[in-house]
């Protein structure tokens, strides 16, 4: 085997390996079968985000894939983020377990914002909001320059959220 042939043989798998890694990183849990959703941290909480930025509207939306009204409501956020450029939406998934399968199904939804996971326990729900009775979906909205969040329990319509955002923007 001459040197050129040897190099060609060796190089090919290395290039493929790099490409594969690149693809894995680009598509996240869609192609990595072991990856799970990142865990919820306090930084996700809308009250904390509101202090970071003076212009953006922050929405933290809590949902679960087992919750039918939650899944019906999710497409609303696609439209909202397109129509309101200052809107930042973060999604918190409260499924029973954080599995790679859950991560892949969430990825397929192509939600317009980061998604993290929080186990649905009484302790967690009280921590997020003492007034939240655990009903899903739950939406917390923080407008710039405001100290408190607007909390919406249950499924919202595109129209009601749209009106709420417009009222604050004007």
């Amino acid at each position: 085997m001459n040197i050129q042939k040897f190099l060609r043989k060796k190089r090919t798998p290395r290039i493929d390996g790099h490409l594969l890694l690149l693809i894995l990183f680009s598509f996240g849990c869609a192609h990595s079968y072991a990856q799970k959703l990142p865990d919820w941290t306090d930084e996700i909480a809308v009250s904390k985000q509101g202090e970071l930025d003076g212009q953006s509207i922050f929405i933290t939306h809590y949902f679960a894939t087992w919750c039918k009204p939650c899944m019906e409501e999710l497409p609303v956020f696609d439209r909202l983020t397109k129509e309101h450029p200052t809107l930042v939406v973060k999604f918190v998934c409260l499924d029973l377990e954080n599995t790679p399968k859950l991560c892949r199904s969430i990825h397929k939804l192509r939600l317009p914002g980061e998604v993290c996971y929080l186990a649905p326990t009484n302790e967690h729900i009280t921590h997020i909001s003492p007034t939240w009775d655990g009903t899903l979906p739950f939406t917390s909205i923080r407008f710039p320059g405001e100290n408190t969040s607007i909390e919406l329990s249950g499924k919202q319509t595109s129209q009601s959220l749209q009106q709420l955002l417009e009222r604050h923007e004007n």
Partner: protein
Amino acid sequence: MKTKLFLLFLVVTMIAFGQIPSTISLKNVDEKMVSFSDYPTAKGFIVIFTCNHCPFAKLYPKRLNDLHEKYKELGVPLIAISSMDTISYEDDSYLKMIQKAKKEHYGFPYLYDPTQEVAKLFHAQKTPHAFVIWRNGDHFDIKYSGAIDDNGLHPNEVENPYLSMAVDELLQGKKVSIPETMTIGCQIYFRK
């Protein structure tokens, strides 16, 4: 007419004060009607609003059987009720309830509330949503409303078995120390 109006007034007043009439009657999975009044010696009841489809409700069948086994001997049997909208959730149909009760070996009645009236009467919001009702003359008073315990996912890690705590306190003649807790589960949507 006057009698009907009086009865309606009575029921509305009872509901406003957290009272449950003993005459409530619903169809069980064995097709027989079941009423609280069928249990003349019961001191009270554990009433669980549950359903077939909800992942949270699916975590509890064994615990419900255990609760029933333990407390029926002490005069507090368990009754499960499904008030889910069967149009939205086919899995909660009466036929599927029969299959579920068989599969999970339910030792307690699993009643079908097709009009959702009983859920409204209790102000049940989610599945599972637990209640403890206690006999007071010709009716029952709601003494506890909320979660079965504080860990749906991991039964071995339960720190606060709220429902059992309430029943134990009532059996000892004490006041329920935690009469209300938050429930996590699937929302019972009421048909308009």
